């Protein structure tokens, strides 16, 4: 680094001046950095507060127990939160086993060959595909080719595809942190590969996997574009059939084929209306969504922190 070669330094005063100057630059950058981070934080706080203050008049039990309505003041999010829960149930049941299995395969079983390279490239690529493309995939494949219609099942599967790369990546990272000697110890007492995975690898990487699952679910709650693209209705004033029945066999799967709406679509619908009253509703749903995602993300961050602190091999 030929920083000062250009101008030879003559006396001590000049050196002191130079040092002072550079220290000042240091201080200025630190101040700028703190300012930038503070403004990002403040933006986040304003975002939260804006939603809460705008939506404040609508907070109450009625909001959660009413169907959407043409009258803004009577409208609620009953069908939206029930729809969101059922869609996420499908997403969870599909994405979590599939994602963990894929992650386990890539870390524990895959040999270094073209197939595992191909899978790996695909996983990292899928994480970079815009979510609306998944919506188009679902529209062409699930809605029309498989004829599943614009149902809870379609939406759940779509969000599962979206969530899959997140689960795979976090599973792999968690598994990679387990030292080889744990596996060797298990193999030494005669365990098979699957026994090692099931009794050691998965339990020890549980925290990391759970973190990824929660972050993925939080993303799925707020994901709007793919669900709109499959053509989900926005005005739903009914509930899907109950998944739990009073008669044998106590469960039914009719709800999978039901039409639905979800929280972010309800919010988008209300933002798109010109009337101010609906914007209040939109803010209230937004507050609900943002509380849910913030709680989930916060929990995931805390969990990861704890896992990192606790594990000492």
């Amino acid at each position, binding site marked *: 680094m030929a920083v000062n070669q250009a101008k030879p330094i003559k006396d001590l005063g000049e050196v002191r001046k130079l040092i002072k100057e550079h220290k000042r630059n240091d201080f200025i950058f630190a101040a700028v950095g703190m300012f930038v981070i503070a403004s990002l934080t403040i933006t986040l706080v304003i975002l939260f507060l804006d939603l809460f203050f705008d939506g404040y008049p609508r907070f109450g039990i009625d909001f959660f127990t009413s169907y959407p309505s043409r009258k803004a003041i009577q409208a609620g999010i009953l069908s939206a939160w029930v729809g969101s829960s059922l869609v996420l149930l499908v997403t969870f049941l599909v994405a979590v086993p599939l994602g963990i299995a894929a992650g*386990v395969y890539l870390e524990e079983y895959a040999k270094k060959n073209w197939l595992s390279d191909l899978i790996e490239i695909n996983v990292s690529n899928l994480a970079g595909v815009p979510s609306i493309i998944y919506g188009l*995939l679902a529209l062409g494949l699930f809605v029309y080719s498989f004829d599943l219609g614009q149902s809870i099942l379609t939406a759940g599967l779509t969000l599962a595809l979206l969530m899959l790369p997140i689960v795979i990546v976090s599973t792999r990272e968690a598994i990679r942190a387990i030292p080889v000697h744990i596996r060797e110890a298990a193999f030494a007492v005669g365990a098979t590969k699957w026994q090692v995975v099931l009794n050691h690898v998965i339990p020890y990487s549980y925290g990391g996997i759970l973190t990824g699952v929660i972050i993925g679910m939080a993303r799925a709650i707020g994901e709007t574009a793919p669900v709109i693209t499959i053509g989900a209705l926005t005005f739903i004033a009914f509930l899907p059939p109950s998944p739990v029945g009073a008669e044998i066999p106590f469960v039914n799967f009719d709800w999978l084929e039901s039409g639905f709406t979800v929280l972010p679509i309800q919010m988008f619908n209300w933002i798109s209306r010109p009337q101010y009253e609906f914007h209040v509703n939109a803010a209230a749903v937004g507050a609900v969504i943002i509380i849910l995602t913030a709680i989930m993300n916060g929990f995931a*961050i805390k969990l990861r922190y704890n896992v990192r602190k606790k594990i000492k091999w």
Partner: protein
Amino acid sequence: MATKVMQDLVISPELAKNFRRNFTEKIIEFGLLFSAVFAVFITTAIVYVLVSEAIPFFQHVSIYEFLTDTVWTPNYSIKRYGILALISGTLTTTFIALLVAVPLGTITAIYLSEFASHKVRETIKPILELLVGVPTVVFGYFALMLVTPLLQKIYPDLTTFNMLGPGIVMGIMIVPYIASVSEDAMRAVPMAMREGAYAMGATRFQTAIKVIAPAATSGIVASYILAISRAVGETMIVAVAAGQQPNFTFNPVESAATITAYIVSVALGDLEHGGIGYQSIFAAGLTLLVMTLMLNILGHWVRKKYAERY
């Protein structure tokens, strides 16, 4: 064990158990392999669905017209499909977002990696992660209801739907992506390089700008490319706040639809399966996929090619 089998000439229970065990192991491995191959299946399905629905569209509209025309009017009596009208909106909002996100993200990354104490870093990073977790439809509300009205106070001619407000909000949304990837790249620079610079009498700022940032260039550039890819594919912010009317313009105070916003606006209406309107969203989606795919490959290439080895 083997001798025992030969003596008895019957399969011993242990061997039978072994066989069963190995068989189960194989089945399980196969199941796991299937799950992993599923990722390849999804990619194939995406490409297949987009291409197969876009082919009939391109039989109607020539690819040349699609790529060069600047008017997109699928709902008018004279239908014209010039994707440039949508790409202009996409590029303008992306550009505004980058103007916001690149300086803020880079400064945040340098501060966190080189200036912040361990405690400060551990406090700031979760805040950035919470920012990543905010659903985009909420950011859309923020752009439409808060940022645009604020901008209208400074610039009263601004329309309700414009590209400036959503562009700025999108920039705030992608700051954490740039910050976290760049910070990882800078933290990966070996401590010895910092110590060398400090030993020569460099300040933190000098070390960060003249030693660490050049050494981490590949990671920093890759983070910018990732950010562009996010901004290009971002849907809800622009669909809510930038309007859904295709408009060939690069003027940020005007309203214009992006590729993603067009797909949403068509999906909100009645879709006639197999009609040209239905096919047009797949052609638009294919364009979007090609754009993001090229960006992702470029980012991957930059990281590989220009990575410094120590």
